[in-house]
């Protein structure tokens, strides 16, 4: 399934780029993400738990940043599984930053996600709605956090373990 969305942030593009490549900040903004760690210069390991209709799934994900084109674009791939390997998840992601004006940036994201296994059997149409609503929640949390803070540069060393 293809997940798309965009949101605007009242900060210059270079500042937004710095925030979006800060894994600690991103982890704090992803609903249900309780862990993230950097395992190589381009790879991150994260755990994300989502729930719907009594179904709970906790994914162990590895995110590989495949291309960084500051301050415009980040490409990444996500691979993951539930603890018991009951479901597998794979996604190709693209985040693009567009300058609206000197002080405002539009963030667009596209993710091509495939889910197989036990969750693949369950209402994928509804799951897409759920993921889209998580995308909106992410945008809100990110906006809340970075619009009130001074623009900081990327600080991956400060990642909580």
């Amino acid at each position, binding site marked *: 399934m293809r997940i798309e969305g965009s949101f605007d942030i009242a900060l210059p593009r270079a500042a937004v780029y710095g925030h979006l490549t800060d894994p600690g900040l991103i982890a704090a903004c992803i609903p249900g993400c309780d862990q993230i760690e950097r395992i190589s210069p381009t790879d991150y390991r994260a755990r994300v738990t989502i729930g719907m209709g009594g*179904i709970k799934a906790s994914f162990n994900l590895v995110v590989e940043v495949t291309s960084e084109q500051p301050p415009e674009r980040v490409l990444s791939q996500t691979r993951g599984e539930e603890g018991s390997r009951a479901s597998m998840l794979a996604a190709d992601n693209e985040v693009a930053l567009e300058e609206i004006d000197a002080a405002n940036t539009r963030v667009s994201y596209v993710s091509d996600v495939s889910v197989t296994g036990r969750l693949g*059997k*369950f209402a994928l149409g509804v799951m897409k*709605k759920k993921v889209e609503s998580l995308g909106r929640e992410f945008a809100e949390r990110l906006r809340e956090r970075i619009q009130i803070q001074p623009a900081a540069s990327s600080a991956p060393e400060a990642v909580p373990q």
Partner: protein
Amino acid sequence: MSVDQGVFRPASVDEAVSVLARLPDARLISGGATLVAMINARLIEPAALVSLAGVDELHGITENPDGGWRIGAMTRHRDVAAERRFTGTLALVQQAASLIANATVRNMGTIGGAIAHADPGLDYPPALVAADAQIEIASGKGRRRLPASEFFVDWYATALQSAELVTAVHLRAASDGVGLYHKLARVSGDYATVSVALTMSSGVAGIATRAAMGACGPTPILLEEANALLSGSPGESELNRAGELLAAAADPVDDVRGSAEYRRLLIPRMLARAFTEARAAIGART
């Protein structure tokens, strides 16, 4: 209360509530039509099951002194489908029950289990919203009632809090009129691609209509503005406008049953068909 292999068997609603309060990861099991399939597919792994089979007050359909009805949460779809006392505007509840899945599921599944699961493709939710039913909910603090339109809150989500359970569905006394439930499904027995539930009665100010669309968003869609357009003496333009409003309010999924676009296209057409049929039925009577 007996407990056998992780299955609690309370004899009263209070006992069931106390188990839920103690074990938040326990799941209530009523008919098991959906829950057992989900357990088999390993979609859920409840810490324990709380069977409601032995709670007498949850069973059966009773008529209230005011002509309204109480349908116990454990009432099976088969029994609602066979209920000939739901006449007039209430006939849509009986019709919706008769169109749920297949005979096997109707023999197992219950009204309380269905609405607590709140799958958007189910038949009961739009019917109960159109019928302006009330959902009776029990918790450790006692009972509360919610209109069906406030009970369904999101995809697979209801107003039920933890350690609460549905105990009954209340229907107001039937008005002399028509209640219709139409379901479009790929094959008989499937979940609805789109469904429409509608009640219509006639009075001195013309007709009064309530319409709810099912399977085209997280919860049934009922709009007061659309109902106002469909009441009084509506013509074709009011009917079209109501269909447009409902389609605009829809948030359908793309899935194997149809694309979101197709579902939006169906909404005004299904509404028009149900509306026209109800109006003809009212006209034939007066």
